[in-house]
């Protein structure tokens, strides 16, 4: 496989992984954040702390545990078995699971804060205007928490693009399948191909800058438009 094609595959994969992971993070993180914001359970802070824990482990170590989890002897293998595979490791799905696990706190905490910041009144108003809990969640809580979602998405996205310890461990850096850009840069740096590494890093920065700036600006625009 030639270098250019491999690089392109890595770019595609990185974008895909970051986008899918960010979406999954929002989908999973939102209900957790909502529960943390609304529940009165005394132990909810313990749950909040647990959500932050994967961060504490070095990525390769986390990757190691994730590998065991996803591998043939873990639940991941069992799930994979249902689809005729033997392991979720070394697959795109596995990468997404690992990245999600690792970036979850970046998404949960900001969204939780956003949910808490507007207090109970807007939801009370929504209820008196016939909006059931689900309706009020979508029509009031989510739009009001927009800054939290954007922060969560930006951090989740950036962290997923940059992360490579977990990804390398779970994915194995298989070109075109699990070899993302961060792994590619890592390879360049490790093999002393610094010019290539610089260029790739520069490209990544420019790309990520564009995406993140886009998210941030879009948020402010939306804030104005929706009103």
């Amino acid at each position: 496989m030639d270098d250019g094609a491999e690089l392109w595959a890595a770019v595609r994969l990185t974008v895909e992984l970051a986008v899918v992971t960010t979406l999954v993070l929002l989908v999973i993180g939102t209900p957790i954040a909502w529960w943390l914001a609304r529940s009165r359970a005394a132990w909810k802070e313990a749950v909040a702390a647990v959500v932050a824990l994967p961060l504490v482990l070095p990525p390769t170590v986390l990757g190691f545990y994730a590998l065991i989890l996803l591998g043939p002897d873990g639940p991941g293998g069992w799930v994979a078995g249902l689809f005729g595979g033997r392991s979720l490791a070394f697959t795109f799905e596995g990468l997404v699971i690992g990245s999600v696990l690792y970036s979850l706190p970046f998404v949960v905490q900001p969204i939780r804060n956003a949910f808490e910041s507007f207090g109970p009144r807007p939801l009370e108003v929504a209820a008196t205007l016939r909006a059931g809990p689900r309706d009020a969640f979508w029509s009031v809580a989510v739009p009001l928490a927009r800054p939290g979602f954007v922060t969560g998405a930006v951090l989740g996205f950036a962290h997923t693009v940059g992360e490579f310890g977990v990804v390398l461990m779970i994915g194995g850096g298989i070109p075109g399948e699990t070899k993302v850009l961060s792994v590619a840069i890592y390879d360049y740096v490790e093999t002393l191909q610094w010019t290539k590494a610089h260029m790739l890093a520069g490209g990544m920065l420019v790309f990520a800058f564009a995406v993140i700036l886009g998210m941030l600006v879009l948020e402010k625009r939306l804030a104005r438009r929706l009103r």
Partner: protein
Amino acid sequence: RLAIAANFTAAAREIVAAFEAATGHRVVASFGSTGALYTQITQRAPYHVFLAADQVRPALAEREGLAVPGTRFTYATGRLVLFSREPDLVTGEATLRAGTFTKLAVANPITAPYGAAAVEVLRALGIYQTVERRLVLGTNIAQTYQFVETGNAELGLVAASQVAERAGGSRWLVPQSLHSVIAQDAVLLTIGAENPAAVAFLAFLRSGPARAVIARHGYAVAE
């Protein structure tokens, strides 16, 4: 599919290209630290051939039934170089003995074979005690080289393969007698046992052209 130790990346790419051109087989190579690759292999990573940076893990793979017994061999032997990017700093053994540097970069002796070898060298020269406090450890040999290349450490014991194509600086090729052999073993993994391409690649790795490439990259090639 190959799992290749990161320090061998440059040479491996050339060899893979040559192999593909010669045989028409398609090769997918993953690079990583030997430890990480091995961990993945224990989790049935879809690798067929394992080119490690040490001998321990291929042997372990063999013992654990992850590799095909008897396919293990040493494909390259690393050489240590005392290197500095400053032109006149390294003059030879004396540079180490003089100890006029503030930081000496070596690879982590616990995790990297080059690191273990570097410590052996220092002990052999009888200066380990004196320089111990000035050592900085790279996780692997690549990082060790970065410490030196960025000038954060004035000098370091790095792999000869890393500076083989680098002009400038000053260097001293450490005699092999000062440390045990830094042998890198390759092994055919159980998953790849039935894969003719994998078997062919291992054979190619022993062939003349491959050995030439390996040597050119600063490795000693085992007999």
